[in-house]
């Protein structure tokens, strides 16, 4: 197990790093390259959005960083250590909210506290006091006050996705992985949740990896957008987004914003032509 110390550069910690990473899926003759010679360095506090044609390996990068997947070749470092070396307690949210139906919304949200240290050590003692308050405070921030005792099936898709964000953030993770979290929601709910997610992010500034198909979503939320080529995926464009925060829906009507999304659209179109 290689352990490297997190290198610092101008006082900023690199929280995740991919070195010449290659991922190959399948066995025998049916293998395909999902990710090829990918290099990527992400600084702590970055909000990285990944866009690209479908099947280009966006989610693969997410899974690599989360330690759910081992690279076929190359190295993945998270918080300076090779992935898998230590429990990092990464927060994760998918398009499917996956709330457990036998638990209340509050119990669902508190689940990470049961697993991630140091919270898990005192879970029994704190679950009805400190942790409960923590969950309720988070629920209030996403506009779900009073829904803590409800069961998942009593909530709408948009409400479940709010709860899902709470569950991903309850343990104040340093890394947050979002795989098309708002993909199944209507436009209005989605835009509302962008603002909420931005507020939550600005509070603790975790490093975020967001996979999305929605270019406006990427431009609204991210501080850095990675455009990926069609399979095998490679990062073809790495663009900083510096609209001032907090961004509002007004921001999305500004010419700089529309120019950016149009640029991204052109790049992805070009990437798809390259198949």
């Amino acid at each position, binding site marked *: 197990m290689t352990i490297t110390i997190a290198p610092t550069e101008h006082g900023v910690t690199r929280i995740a790093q991919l070195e010449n990473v290659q991922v190959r899926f399948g066995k025998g003759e049916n293998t395909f390259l999902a990710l090829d010679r990918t290099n990527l360095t992400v600084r702590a506090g970055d909000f990285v959005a990944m866009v690209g044609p479908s099947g280009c390996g966006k989610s693969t990068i997410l*899974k690599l960083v989360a330690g759910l997947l081992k690279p076929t070749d190359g190295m993945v470092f998270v918080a300076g250590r090779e992935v898998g070396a230590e429990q990092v307690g990464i927060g994760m949210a998918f398009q499917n909210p*996956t709330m457990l139906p*036998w638990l209340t919304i509050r119990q669902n949200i508190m689940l990470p506290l049961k*697993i*991630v240290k140091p919270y898990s050590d005192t879970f029994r003692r704190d679950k009805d006091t400190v942790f409960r308050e923590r969950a309720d405070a988070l629920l209030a921030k996403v506009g779900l006050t009073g829904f803590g005792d409800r*069961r998942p099936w009593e909530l709408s898709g948009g409400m479940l996705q709010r709860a899902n964000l709470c569950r991903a953030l309850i343990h104040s993770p340093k890394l947050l992985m979002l795989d098309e979290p708002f993909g199944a929601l209507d436009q209005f709910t989605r835009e509302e949740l962008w603002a909420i997610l931005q507020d939550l992010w600005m509070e603790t500034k975790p490093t975020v990896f967001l996979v999305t198909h929605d270019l406006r979503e990427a431009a609204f939320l991210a501080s850095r957008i990675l455009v990926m080529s069609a399979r095998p995926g490679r990062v073809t464009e790495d663009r900083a987004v510096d609209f001032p925060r907090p961004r509002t829906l007004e921001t999305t009507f500004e010419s700089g914003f529309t120019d950016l999304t149009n640029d991204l659209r052109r790049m992805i179109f070009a990437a798809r032509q390259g198949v």
Partner: protein
Amino acid sequence: MSSMQIRENLKSVSLIVLMFVLWEVACVLFHISPIVLPRPSAIFTTLFVQMPALWPNILQTLATTMVGFGLGMVIGVALGVFVGVSRTAYKTAYPLLVGFSSIPKVAVVPIFVLWFGSGTVPAVLTALTTCIFPIVVNVATGLATTEPEMEDVLKALGATRMQVLWNVTLPRAMPYFFASLKVAVTLAFVGTVLSETVASNLGIGTVMMMASSSFDVPLAFAGLFALAFLGIVLYSIFALIEQRVCGWAIRKQDLAMG
């Protein structure tokens, strides 16, 4: 109980009463001989009059069923967990399980009698073998059913295999387990009575065999009624437990039995 549930229960009871009424009327109208098909009123009378003699047999059948079912549950869960926790074990063992479960249980009674003599032991074993497969298959299926995204969420958090099992896999398997218990308890009954009709000197199955050989048809039917009644009671008990333990899987209005 809500008014809607009462109304639903009322409908079920009415259907049963209606069936008996039609049966009674048909017997009278078509002059059906009591040797062929006794009237329900005659059967209930027999059931009531013969109760002192029937009672020990009912207890015997009930006890045999519960012991067989209890053992079947313990062994079934153990086997189900063994098969269900690994995908390989599940795939490997499934054909064997299906093979075993498709053997008609009538065929195993003589073998048990051969091994253990007639009486309670073969009845318990027949009950066990009859009820065990739904439990094994359901527990295994419940454990093998996963939601990959939920597991990813937990693994990213750094959860151990035990934590995933305890927090997600086991609770998710509960509805499968309880659904199988409802079915299994009635099947255990079938197994017990089957064995009793072949080789025993106590139990409702034995009573029915003796009644039919002496052409006491109402008594044979009284035995059937006693069995049906016990079946409904046991099924209801397990349906109630299921509702309490995993109501989340049934949700509100579908709480009616079955």
